């Protein structure tokens, strides 16, 4: 699971109001190289919740992103885009869990695939 996916996922349990961001429990992180695509990054920048990405990236062992929401002018900086690219697309949570911030319910991540299936009483 890339951090882009983490940034798009919320707890889907019935009644949960504040289900984002899911807390990450890390067992295993892997890195996979992805073709650098600045247009994609520029498109995604405004859609990304920056704090969630920076925090998740840190938990995954990559602390190079600024903590504060950067001004859009940083998109002209190749150095910034490379860091954004790495955090968003190249870090994978291979094994671990995503935890609902409101209820503490754990959603397991195995072989890089989060399991968001709910029990009957959670739907």
């Amino acid at each position, binding site marked *: *699971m890339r951090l882009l996916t983490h940034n798009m996922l*919320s707890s889907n349990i019935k009644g949960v109001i504040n289900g984002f961001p899911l807390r990450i429990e890390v067992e295993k992180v892997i890195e*996979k190289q*992805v073709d650098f*695509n600045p247009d994609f990054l520029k498109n995604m920048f405004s859609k990304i919740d920056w704090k969630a990405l920076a925090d998740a990236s840190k938990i995954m062992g990559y602390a190079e992103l600024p903590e504060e929401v950067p001004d859009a002018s940083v998109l002209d900086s190749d150095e910034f885009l490379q860091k954004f690219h790495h955090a968003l697309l190249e870090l994978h949570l291979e094994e671990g869990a995503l935890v609902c911030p409101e209820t503490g319910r754990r959603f397991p991540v195995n072989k890089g695939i989060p*399991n*968001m299936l*709910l029990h009957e009483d959670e739907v």
Partner: protein
Amino acid sequence: MSVIWDAKGSFKIFDDMPPRIAQIRLVSSHPQVYAPCDDSYALVDALLADRKKLIDHHPTICMEVGSGSGYVITSLALILKSESNSPHFFATDVNPHATLVTRDTLEAHEVHAELLTTNITSGLEKRLAGMVDVMVVNPPYVPTPEEEVGNGGLSAAWAGGENGRAVIDKILPVADNLLSEKGWLYMLFLAANDPLQICLEMRDRGYGSKIVVQRSTEEETLHVIKFWRESENQMEGSEGGSTPKSGSQKGWNYIFSQLSRLTFRETRQ
């Protein structure tokens, strides 16, 4: 492959190879996962028929709901693969075996999609709303008793409840929520699902529609229908850029005649 010399004496090489799609020998399998079949082939044929439009559409995010073996999402990823500007892909399935099989199929073709084991797109609906440029769905469309719907495992791939509409009717509003302003939805239906009524329902939500592929096998008549938003700031029919304003009604007459003929034929059988 053909080589063409231009006036300056330099040459260009045109690759006439057919576009790449997933290869059956590389598609992974599992006893609890639906293997590629006529419906999967019809859906990929629809994507191939629209290949140029899809490439020119420059999607940022593409998604398949119910990826099963991974045959369709892998084919879409191969069709849209480019060195510098590949879109990002998501694929979901309610069956945990299916997301694993999809992962293996994608890896065997050296493409990537982010996978989620979830019911339709549950968990993505808040943050991914309005961001999906291309969505592809081969839903469980077979008419079955309602109690067979949602039992998980292999039957989740086909059990569609009354008229095969139980899951389809849940997916349509979800697609409407996730699709971007320029979003396209490719979805496969059986004549028994009453696709004409589905097109009318989608028209009420502001979507144009057309049949991209229709195919009759011994057992069933399948159609892949493409939907797009007919919004003010999107040129009408910018799905293909072809339908002039006055052509809209003509388009509707066409889809009506095609679908009602199919429905009629099915009913007579």
